[in-house]
Structure formats: C-alpha cells, structure tokens
C-alpha cells in the first residue's frame, strides 16, 4: 500500500492505515468477480463517443477568453520550485 501511495503522490499515515487497507481489500475482493467471466475473445470497450472518433477543430489561431487571458491579467504566475539539484 505504501508503494502504491508513493506512485499516487500520497502518504499512508499509521493512523487509519489498517482501516484503509481493510476497505481497499474489501473493494478488491468485490472486484474479483470480474474473473468469473471469460474475456479472452473480447476487446477493450471502444470509446463511446459518437462514431468512436474525436471531434477535432481546424488548427487555426482564434481569439478566446480563458486561461491565456488569466496569464495576461496577473502578468506572471508564481509557482513553487520543482527543480532540485542531484
């Protein structure tokens, strides 16, 4: 569980660890029922979008309000340092 938490960018504190482990294994036990089905000849579900295709727009510059505008109003974003020395 600690390994998975690490992958997920989470921590598992000692507090409530047992409870969480119990809940997750109950859910995984429940999910086990999927093994009763033979899916060897079945493909993964296609995207349920109409026609199974993405709807793409033309690659043209267009005016829009939104995130680019947010950058304009505040000038710059200040973010925490995410580069470390080795």
């Amino acid at each position, binding site marked *: 569980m600690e390994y998975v938490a690490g992958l997920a960018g989470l921590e598992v504190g000692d507090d409530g660890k047992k409870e969480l482990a119990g809940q997750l294994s109950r859910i995984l036990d429940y999910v086990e029922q999927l093994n009763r089905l033979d899916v060897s000849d079945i493909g993964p579900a296609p995207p349920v979008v109409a026609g199974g295709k993405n*709807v793409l727009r033309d690659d043209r510059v267009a005016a829009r309000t939104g995130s680019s505008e947010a950058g304009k109003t505040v000038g710059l974003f200040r973010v*925490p340092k995410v580069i470390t020395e080795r």
Partner: protein
Amino acid sequence: MNLKGITAEKLVALYRNRDLSVTEVISGLFDDIERIDPNVRAFITLMRDRALKDARSLDARIASGDTIEPFAGVPVAVKDNISIRDVATTCGSRMLESDVAPYTATAVERLRGAGAIVVGKTNLDEFGMGSSTENSAFFVTRNPHDLDRVPGGSSGGSAASVASGMSLAALGSDTGGSIRQPASFCGVVGLKPTYGRVSRYGLVAFASSMDQIGPLSKSVREAAMALAVISGLDHYDSTSSGARIGDYVRGLDRPIKETRIGIPKEYFAGNLDPEVRRKIESAIGLFEGLGCAIEEISLPHTEYAIATYYIIAAAEASSNLARYDGVRYGLSETGRNPGEMYRRTRMSGFGTEVRRRILLGTYALSAGYYDAYYNRALKVRTLVLRDFQKAFEGVDAILTPTTPTTAFRIGEKTADPLEMYLSDVFTITCNLAGLPGISVPCGWNSTGLPVGMQLLANHFQEGLLLRLAHYFEKAGGFTL
C-alpha cells in the same frame, strides 16, 4: 415570490406580459434562499449581486420591447464542478477552495445566452465522488423532504435546490448516476444525456470516458428546454458531438403509442426495496395504459457493472487528479523537496474518499496489475455495451428503478465505502455504455419520500426519453 407550482415557461410569460419584473422575482428568491438554505445547505457560493445585475439588465430589455429568450430570467443553479468565470469552482474540495475559474463552461455560457440567471454554485461530493453529498469537504446537504436524510449525490446540492424551490432548474454532472440518483431522492427530474451530447468544456474532470453534464428540473418540459439549449458541438471539447439536436420541446407531445419498453429482469432481483418495486410496477402499468408495449428483457452483465465501473472510474480519476500537485491549481503546501510538496499538498487537499479512489485507481493501473484490473474492466465494459446494443434491437427504451431504495439517512453508509458504491447499481450501466438516461418522480413511499423511475434509450435518443417521461408525468401527476 414562491417558485413552488411555477414553471419556467409560466415565469417567462409573466415577465413578457410585465406581470412581474425579473428583479422582484430574483430578489424575492434570494429572500427565500436566506430562509431555506440554512436548513438544506444546497449552496457553496451564492451569486446575489451578479444575479440582480443580470435581472436589472433583463428588465431594461423587456421595458424597451425586446423579444426575450426561452430561459429569460429563469433562476438556475450550477454544480460547483462546473466553471463560471470569476467565481470560485471548489469541486467541494479543500484543494480548490480558493480557486477562481478563469473561464465559463460552455453549458453555462449557453444557458446564460438563453437568458437564464445563475443564482449560485451547489454542493457536491468532492470532485463528484460519492452518492450522498456527505463527501463534500465543506458541509453536508440535506434532503428537503426529510432533513435527516441525504439528498443523494454527487449533484445533491443541485437536486436539493430545485426540490426546495431555490432554483427552477440546475446543472449537474453524471459519471455513475450523479444526476439521476439525487433527482430520484429529491423528487425532481434529472437527465443524463448521451456521452458527447453536451460539451464538457469547463467541467472539472473526474472520469473522462463517462462524465457528462445534464439538467435537473421540476418538470420534464424544463429538462427538454435546457437540453435543447446546452446540447451540441463545441470546439473546446473533442468528445462533443455534432449529431442533430432534436426539437426536444415540441417533440414532447408526439405520440408514444406502440413504443416498445423493455423491463430488464436483473434490475428487479436482489435488494430492491418492496415499496420502490411497487411504485415501479405501477409505473409500468401506467405505460401499458398509454398504449406502450411492455417486454421483459435481459441485460446479463448487469451484476458486473459496479466492479467494472469502480475500476475504470478510479483509474481515470487517479490520472485526472494527478494535476493537483501544488503547482498548477489551488492549494499549495511547502516541502523540503518537490516530492514532499506534492504529498503534503495532496494529503491536506484531498478528503478520504478521493484518496481512496486515487489509491484504488493507481493500483489498478500499476505495472503487473494493469491487465488483471483495468484491462479486464475495459473488456467487461464491452460486454455491458453489447447487452444494451442487443436489447435495443428489440425495444425502444428500457424502464428500471433509479435506485434500489429511497433516500437513506445521513451517516447510514459512510462507514463502509463498498456499501455506498452498491447504491449506484441501477445508474452506472448507462455511463459505461454512454447512453442517455432520465430519472422521473413516480410517487412517494409510505414515509413521504420520493421514488424515482429511470428510462434509458439508445445513443442520442433523448427526444424519446423526454417524450416518454413527459407522458408519464402528465398521467401520473407526481411532480412536486
């Protein structure tokens, strides 16, 4: 001004004839909200100033003789995972508590373009993860019919606001039943459109292959009106569809005689509450009386749907929520290195259910387990989809209960997450298959709690669903 007993169409007609001004209605509505919401707690953010400003400019337009739009001056509420520019979009999470949206969701843009006035942002289970609105990081919303019970979830605030007359319609989002289940618990209409029918631009992502925005309203007609406005292609959402938008409102009165309605036997086995069963059985009788052909059908993979859904939804959520890293959005905790900063931010920003699902999803996607869990779930999803494809060769629509029980008590299911997941049994197949579904009130149980009936149809058959629901509503008279 009491919104009970008034419809959107009636309200717009009153404005048009200048029997009422928009400003007096909206200002009276906020008085109602002040009185009702301290008990129900449907809203995270109220938008009084902006709503009154919109109301005044609409009044000026009406006074100058402008023609007004179908939703002109109609008060609507918006679930707080749908963005409105310059307003906080919290998703019911500490992570985004102070995050202000830089743009407006397409569905909201379109509703406002049709004249609707947004009165506020409604409470939800954090990031849409829950079935009771108890997973909101801020407070629990209560069912207006019984304040000791949950309103359902995750769009519980939207459902409660409509049911208690604090808005005439609302937007919600539905990933596994989050519009239909609270609609059922609160006695209102809730429509989950076909995946792709409504743009998701501006909806904060939970499980992207299933998320869909849709309306909640008191009557079917308002749901039809809202769907007609919010549907359609949007170049900001590559999964939105350009499929023809039906004339949902005028189509309501087209004949339904000889429509074939399937009753899936798997939805009537197991833990279905006997009172809910009786209401659904009389709903079936009512459709027979309206000249529909009723047929028993089978959707054999129904029993696998919850397991399939919780793997796929958790996997997608674990990926979607990776973006909350303390750098790009909302909350940011400090740490001695980036890894510690991510972990601290995510530990203080996410509630327990969200963390549980991220862990489950990360596990299902991790090396060595991907095939056993995620890939297998995707294959079973194919089987669920095929069940429906086969069923729709023989029937036009499918009728089921929306939920196995009526609204449960606050706290009743919080100790056991699996128990809570199981309450979504009838609503999640629709999301796995990308189908449209609607929940319509079909009566009350012996303690006065609403019971909901669900109708499902093939992709893009919202017109048929709304029509069936409309006939049922007229014949049954179960509207609040």
